[in-house]
């Protein structure tokens, strides 16, 4: 190998992956960004610069839908951060307790919803929350709270939060597993040193373990962010492409699908669809950059 001959095996090893990845993922990604700058007029594709974005942000018909979807998407994300991740951390903290029995059993059971498809999850919850079937009201009745029941998925003011909570129910397993792994990797010496100083139980969690697992919480947050901002399936399965009632559960994914594919009387418009996709790309990119440069570099990684 000292002689300057071409080592053909290197390109041969790399070629299939790079080819597939480039043609199916990277090229379409940039092509979508490019298509957002075009429009179809009289069956011809013409370059219109940033017109599509102008329409999306300032045309009353489009901008109302766009900001609605974006706002809903942020609420969707906030519910995940406030509910999914704390529950995940709490479950992981309990599971990592060294003398806990049946930990593996609990772990596997709690992870089951995560492996189900959105279609199953969406319909299953739709049936359970349905006033026709009456499982939810009769269960609330059982604990004396029947008056609280409402057809949550059908009410504009509750539908989005309900869907977000269903999604939380489905995905709690992921933060749980990742945090669990992080907690297990904390060496015993550190905890024992804390015990010598009288830090045990809950205060050991807050003062020793939590700071040590912050990097994992950061990773989970960015995974949640990316996942939420290209979510689509659950809303589509439970509420349909119109993201009802009255678009109250519309998020960027469903908005893009409707625009790009068309629905009912509206024709699909791939160029406006691309513009929305570019918006999603920008949001995800900003999120990832904030994480990489703003959060990750500032977080102290402890040598463990």
């Amino acid at each position, binding site marked *: 190998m000292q002689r300057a001959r071409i*080592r053909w095996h290197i390109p041969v090893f790399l070629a299939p992956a790079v080819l*597939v990845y480039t043609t199916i993922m990277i090229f379409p*990604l940039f092509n979508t960004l490019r298509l957002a700058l075009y429009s179809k007029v009289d069956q011809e594709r013409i370059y219109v610069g940033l017109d599509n974005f102008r329409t999306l942000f300032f045309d009353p018909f489009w901008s109302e839908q766009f900001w609605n979807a974006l706002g809903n998407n942020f609420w969707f994300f906030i519910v995940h951060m406030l509910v999914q991740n704390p529950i995940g951390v709490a479950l992981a903290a309990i599971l990592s307790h*060294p003398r806990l029995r*049946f930990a593996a059993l609990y772990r596997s059971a709690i992870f089951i919803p995560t492996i189900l498809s959105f279609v*199953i999850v969406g319909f299953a919850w739709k049936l359970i929350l349905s006033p026709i079937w009456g499982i939810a009201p009769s269960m609330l009745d059982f604990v004396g709270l029947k008056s609280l029941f409402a057809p949550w998925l059908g009410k504009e003011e509750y539908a989005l939060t309900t869907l977000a909570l269903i999604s939380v129910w489905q995905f709690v397993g992921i933060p749980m597993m*990742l945090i*669990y792994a992080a907690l297990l990797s904390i060496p015993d010496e550190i905890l024992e040193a804390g015990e010598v100083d009288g830090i045990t139980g809950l205060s050991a969690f807050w003062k020793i373990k939590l700071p040590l697992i912050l990097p994992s919480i950061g*990773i989970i947050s960015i995974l949640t962010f*990316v996942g939420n901002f290209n979510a689509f399936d659950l809303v589509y399965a439970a509420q349909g492409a119109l993201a009802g009632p009255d678009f109250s559960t519309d998020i960027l994914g469903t908005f893009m699908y409707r625009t790009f594919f068309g629905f009912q009387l509206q024709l699909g418009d791939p160029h406006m669809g691309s513009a929305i996709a570019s918006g999603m790309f920008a949001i995800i990119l900003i999120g990832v950059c904030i994480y990489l440069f703003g959060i990750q570099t500032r977080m102290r990684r402890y040598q463990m």
Partner: protein
Amino acid sequence: MNKARTNPFNNIAMHGALILYTLIALFPVFVILINSFKTRKAIFREPLALPDADTFSMIGYQTVLKQGDFFLYFQNSLIVTVASLFFVLLFGAMAAFALAEYRFKGNTLMGLYLALGIMIPIRIGTVAILEMMVASGLVNTLWALILVYTAQGLPLAVFILCEFMRQVSDDLKNAARVDGLSEYAIFFQLVLPLVRPAMATVAVFNMIPIWNDLWFPLILAPAEEVKTLTLGSQVFIGQFVTDWNAVLSALSMAILPVLVLYVIFSRQLIRGLTSGAVK
């Protein structure tokens, strides 16, 4: 954490919390499964009761099997998932080997380029992907899905496998080189078998999202003969909304294969998630 410090009250509280959450996690699945075996009347009268001799009925399953082509959907899902996993693992391992084993110009850059796709979801490029698939005539074929899922799975696969391949001992590979094995033989006969656990992890990670995906089947392959199980059940349930027996049975039939896979692979999956392979 010695004995004296684990007081029984704490222990009960911990189990209580875990049992409560386990019930929340399993309850919907349980309700769907038991009601799929009941008559329509019993579904509504006693939704939480187990099916007994009076209320047992397979009418929902009969409707599903008669009306929907679930075996075809299942077969499509299986082909797409297995083929995508095969290509992700093969191509991913080859690229990971090149990046981990050889020093060449642009190595780091290539690694970064391939890692881009870990954070950027492939769905963003859907408009252009559809256009490309239409132009190449792959739309409404299983190949369209296989290609997309292969591209989607590669970045993380390369990343994880690269980490593992760096740990394979150099002495072993150099000994093989002295024995006159080609680089290809070293990869296929020596390194691949050694990273099998990592390959299994990658496979399990990719399997669930591919099997469950609704977006790409909906857009790239909505035709009847190439529907995946996820899309098939979505469409079927949409059409049979008022036939509760059929809907519950269709849901159960969609749940069961995943549940079986999970039981088989859960140890692998959980080990992969907790081994820090994704950190």
